[in-house]
């Protein structure tokens, strides 16, 4: 049998890393805000290499309404503790069940999945922007960028003050700018209204958040000629490139956001212009 690494059909990057299915142990499950939870799980055998932007497919047990796995971004990785953190927002029965996981319980994951963000080169000025559970992949991305010697800046958007998630971890990596739609904290408006976003000269902007936010960020970046990668949250069945349900129209046709993505350069996406 040939080595699977050589075989590339749809998946351009996601297929390159060995995936596994594993029962991890819940170490901690902490409520961060309203409907947001931070779940830390540890791998019994030690973690594989995980790149920023990759995700896991979590098996939700004891939830009759949840048939398929649920895709969740890798929020953080702690190699010393062998843990992965997930930032979960309750959206329905599946995430609700995950929010009730107790320390000691098992969480079965298929991971690591998907491609990853392109890291910046030395000396570049980079902004990581997102909102809500779109913040999830940005912490690990920020950490990796920081480790590579580049200082990440963050621009995080929220509905209002009560929905703001703790971002102390982000602050340890770089400056954090906030916006709220009602102005109850930080700048009033969307992330794209934050002066730092608007006025400073960025070499790269990374974005993950609700689709309207990503489209607005993408449009701004295209206008200003800034390199921009977004992480999509298309509905997924398999997360492995076998069901072809998660497609996104790109300049090279329909691509799977689970293997060709979830990270896409906005120039490749068909929605770049409509944003």
């Amino acid at each position: 049998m040939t080595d699977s690494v050589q075989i590339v059909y749809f998946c351009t990057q996601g297929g390159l890393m060995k995936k596994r299915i594993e029962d991890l142990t819940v170490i901690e499950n902490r409520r961060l805000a309203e409907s947001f939870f931070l779940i830390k799980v540890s791998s019994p055998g030690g973690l594989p290499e995980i790149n920023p932007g990759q995700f896991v497919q979590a098996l939700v047990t004891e939830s009759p309404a949840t048939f398929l796995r649920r895709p969740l971004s890798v929020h953080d990785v702690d190699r010393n503790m062998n843990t992965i953190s997930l930032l979960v927002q309750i959206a329905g029965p599946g995430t609700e069940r995950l929010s009730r996981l107790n320390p000691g319980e098992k969480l079965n994951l298929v991971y690591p999945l998907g491609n990853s963000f392109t890291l910046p080169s030395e000396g570049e000025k980079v902004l990581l922007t997102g909102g809500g559970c779109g913040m999830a992949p940005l912490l690990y991305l920020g950490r990796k960028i920081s480790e590579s010697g580049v200082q990440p800046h963050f621009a995080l958007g929220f509905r209002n003050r009560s929905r703001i998630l703790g971002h102390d971890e982000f602050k340890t990596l770089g400056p954090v700018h906030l916006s709220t739609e009602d102005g109850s904290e930080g700048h009033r408006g969307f992330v794209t209204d934050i002066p730092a976003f608007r006025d400073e000269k960025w070499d790269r902007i990374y974005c993950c958040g609700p689709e309207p936010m990503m489209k607005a960020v993408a449009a701004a970046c295209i206008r200003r000629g800034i390199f921009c990668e977004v992480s999509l949250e298309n509905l997924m069945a398999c997360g492995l490139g076998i069901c072809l349900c998660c497609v996104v129209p790109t300049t090279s046709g329909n691509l799977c956001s689970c293997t060709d993505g979830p990270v896409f350069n906005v120039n490749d996406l068909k929605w770049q212009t409509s944003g």
Partner: protein
Amino acid sequence: MADLRIKIGPLEFRNPVILASGTCGYGAELEDFMDLSELGGIIVKGTTLEPREGNPYPRMAETPSGMLNAVGLQNKGIDYFEKNIYPHLAEYDTHVIVNVNGNTIEDYVELSRRLDELKAIPAIELNISCPNVKKGGMIFGTNPASAREVISAVRKVYHKTLIVKLSPNVTDITEFARISEEEGAEAVSLVNTLLGMAIDARTMRPKLSTITGGLSGPAIKPVALRMVWQVARAVRIPVIGLGGIMNAEDAIEFILAGATAVQVGTVSFIDPGAGTSIVKGIEKYLVEKEFDSVSRITGLINRN
């Protein structure tokens, strides 16, 4: 140890567990989770003559104990397949079967002819039951005369093992199984997905871009099992059963109902190593029940 080997026409399979088309990519995507050589076979993605982009997103909706899909046969076409994918498939140590689709009889025939020439593809599965394309697909699988025509035409040009995949969206599936047998197919596989639909009450819109889609998963198992049982009593060629199989017990139920082999589909999305676990589970069951081969339990519920 129990003998798991089964035969479909002239073709011997290591065991009766085959990955279902459209749910296992080209096999490679699942290699991190299982050893494909421990499977009876794999049926790769639905393939067409020309490349296809499939239907617009969204293509998926979760339903109670199942899911709807509306992929619409996205694939890169036979030329790309032959040049870029086939060489890798040819090295697999398991039967690699191609799922054949078309808009017209000519499409089916031409594609089958091309596949007949590919040495490492010992069989094709004629998909006359795809509910997710406007032309072709299910039309052939729900109209007896069209079914006969396309099977007969393909049979003339395809000389290896021909499996016809039947649609459950019919009044009497045994009619289509009989036609397949009469036209010389070596086996029938059933079921493809049930035509279904989902609506989002919040947005007041259908959940799929195509409005309707194909229902798969455990929700359809009782219907699939019933059809396999009916067909197994109606024809003498082997029946390959599928629809909602999640574990070895489910697979055994299909075999007891009369299936010579089974396919596992949607389960691979949830448990990407399900294929080989099911092989092991069937073997364990046979040993525990003291049957020396899987063929001893094929159609058992009809025997006593």
